[in-house]
């Protein structure tokens, strides 16, 4: 398949997944605030800080707003035209990429993502607040689920489908690391007795951000405890949003694309992914604690970024045939969300 097509499928999938994750994070935080008793304005605003950190848009946000209030954060992350990670921009980018390859994807996929885009274009902050943000975020999440379901159900599961999986699982793994990392404070500071409830609520909120509350309960049949939350979201083998699960799926897809069997590798992306899977397979909670949560998450983010870069160099990027080797890329800082490059977006 064309490298450009693979590139578009990959980014279509990443941005669709990103829109869903951002909707989920916002939704959970709003609900959390309803549960916490009598918050001062300052306390309320402080609760939005981790949200902005997890999407990696903290600096950008302060350029546009003075106050970290609910309305401002919601506006910035849902509708802001200058924020490339706002839900509307994620959906627009996903749809632009789909438009680039609309003869490659199924008709049903195109119609669904186009429908979501047209619906999103008709939204305003006023509308979202009036109908209830919950309804809005649910609609965004459902649109993403529908799109992914349609993709699985209507597209041939060949190389093109695998590039979609690669985008989806890389993005998902990345977002889970960000959610954990942004909230690492509440894992470190064990709550004093009197705020015990608020701690539980926050851990529950983190689980909900990853749609994993029920799955967690079922797996542990226990109270929500920070250690177990960490273990579940990083190391669980079967939960589809845990980092380990995402890394495994990524590994399968990359191997289907190249035809290379397990335990071997033919390119850097496969090698790095294989290493990551092995590391997660043979890690336990104690290992994470020894390294420290923040450092551990940073390292995984760096690894995920390197995998993304390696896939780009192997499959998606076609250097001019006569030109010299491209300049080495600047070191990607782990805090920055991976974005679709200008060269591929505007060609």
């Amino acid at each position: 398949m064309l490298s450009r097509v693979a590139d578009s499928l990959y980014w279509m999938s990443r941005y669709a997944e990103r829109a869903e994750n951002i909707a989920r994070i916002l939704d959970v935080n709003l609900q959390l605030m309803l549960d916490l008793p009598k918050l001062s304005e300052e306390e309320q605003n402080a609760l939005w800080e981790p949200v902005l950190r997890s999407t990696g848009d903290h600096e950008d946000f302060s350029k546009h707003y003075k106050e970290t209030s609910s309305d401002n954060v919601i506006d910035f992350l849902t509708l802001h035209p200058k924020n490339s990670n706002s839900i509307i921009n994620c959906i627009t980018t996903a749809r632009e990429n789909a438009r680039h390859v609309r003869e490659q994807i199924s008709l049903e996929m195109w119609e669904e993502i186009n429908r979501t885009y047209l619906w999103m274009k008709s939204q305003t902050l006023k509308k979202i607040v009036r109908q209830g943000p919950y309804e809005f975020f649910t609609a965004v999440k459902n649109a993403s689920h529908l799109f992914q379901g349609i993709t699985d159900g209507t597209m041939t599961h060949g190389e093109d489908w695998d590039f979609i999986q690669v985008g989806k699982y890389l993005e998902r793994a990345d977002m889970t690391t960000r959610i954990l990392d942004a909230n690492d404070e509440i894992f470190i500071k064990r709550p004093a007795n009197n705020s015990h409830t608020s701690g539980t609520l926050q851990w529950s909120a983190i689980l909900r951000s990853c749609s994993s509350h029920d799955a967690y309960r079922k797996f542990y049949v226990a109270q929500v405890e920070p250690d177990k939350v960490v273990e579940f979201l990083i190391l669980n083998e079967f939960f589809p949003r845990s980092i380990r699960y995402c890394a495994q799926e990524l590994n399968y897809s990359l191997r289907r694309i190249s035809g290379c069997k397990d335990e071997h590798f033919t390119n850097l992306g496969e090698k790095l992914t294989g290493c990551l899977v092995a590391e997660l397979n043979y890690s336990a909670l104690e290992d994470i604690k020894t390294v420290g949560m923040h450092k551990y998450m940073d390292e995984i983010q760096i690894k995920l970024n390197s995998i993304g870069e390696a896939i780009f160099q192997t499959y998606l990027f076609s250097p001019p045939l006569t030109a010299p080797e491209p300049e080495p890329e600047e070191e990607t800082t782990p805090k920055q969300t991976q974005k679709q490059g200008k060269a591929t977006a505007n060609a």
Partner: protein
Amino acid sequence: MALLDKYQPGDFFDEMFVAEGKVRPHYAALFERFQNLDREEFDQRRSAVDAAFLRQGITFTVYSDEQGTERIFPFDLMPRIIPATEWNLIEAGLIQRMRALNMFLKDIYTDQRIIKEKVVPAEEVLTAKHYRPEMVGVPVPKDIYIHICGSDMVRDREGTYFVLEDNGRCPSGVSYLLENRVAMKRAFPHLFGSAGVRPVDHYTQDLLTILQYIAPPNGRSTPTVVLLTPGIYNSAYFEHSFLARQMGIQIVEGQDLVVQDKKVYMRTTKGLEQVDTIYRRLDDDFLDPKVFRKDSILGVPGLVEAYRAGNVSLANAIGTGIADDKVVYKFVPDMIKFYLSEEPILANVPTYLASDPKEREYIVTHLEQLVVKAANESGGYGMLVGPASTATQRAEFKEKILENPRNYIAQPTLNLSRHPSYCDGNFEGRHVDLRPYILCGEKISIVPGGLTRVALRKGSLVVNSSQGGGSKDTWVLYGDS
């Protein structure tokens, strides 16, 4: 009150009505069905069709709009019907024209017999903007230059069909023809049952057959055919991706192709793959920055060299633009006589050339009655409709014509035929044209019908989508009623 009760055909050739209340025989069945529809039901289907077009992204991009807004091409639910006898004439006439045009192109790029024998003046051909000296002496596969042609036809006050222009470069619109039929079948399935409408959906298969037919022999089994698009911001991008999907071929942009050893390859995730035929939807000017416009980032460096070496085929060939130059147009009836020794079946619209001193004099003194067109523009740009123009506009055009006579032609303002069209809640007469799509491979075939474009603005004669035009489904019947 039924939908068409108050319809006024007016003082025009009306496609549906001979006179008020008197329907032409081939419209009789349709008329009856429409009269039995109530307005609410009709409106419902109309909005369902519009919503479906938007949902499917069947849209075009408006260039003048800075935001690059995508709009749906307005679709009028009342179909246009052509009876078999009329269609047979159109078909025979267009096939004849097509044969002559391809022979003309071959002649111009080889012996130039038609110039030597003074049938067509050399200066008119060799000064055409789209004449490509790079193509002189270059053989093209099977001697076909124009593989896909979209000729615009109109009817006058008497109902006579005329060819208004031959679009022999990259004619667009065929996807609307096909999608209009799909939409129509969905909205009014019961209309089709007994009407005897000839199907159109074999178009893409026929097109693919031609693209494979012209591929250079490659020693592999099936030729690799791709569609080259300028990209998603092109106004016809929907059509490009539609056609690629229907044919099951790759759609590529310039950056996806690369030339090595005079062969064209596409960049894939598994390395380079050779391409045999390119259905290019990119004008000559942008094809190859090494040969044509140096600033083109849409094209493929080295493509023309590969083409001249016969390692890749292009549809349409390079240099076909001279055949749809509006000055050269005037000579098509002469070409038919010259190459085929036949009388033209379809008439040309009388055309005055500003490059001829006598005709120029006539043009500048009769601007109010004429339609003036730039010789190389398309899409309804660069034209003056005399009767609807202001004195300032006429003065402006007069100056342009005198400054650059080769670039202008004029034609009498035709009293174009009208068709009942749904506007603001009522059926009113609106001017229409017809663009049939001609495919030229082993044989020449025309998909029955074409794109009927309708000037939805009251009184307007301009049917182009960029100028507020819409379209209709076009039915060619097996019989005459």
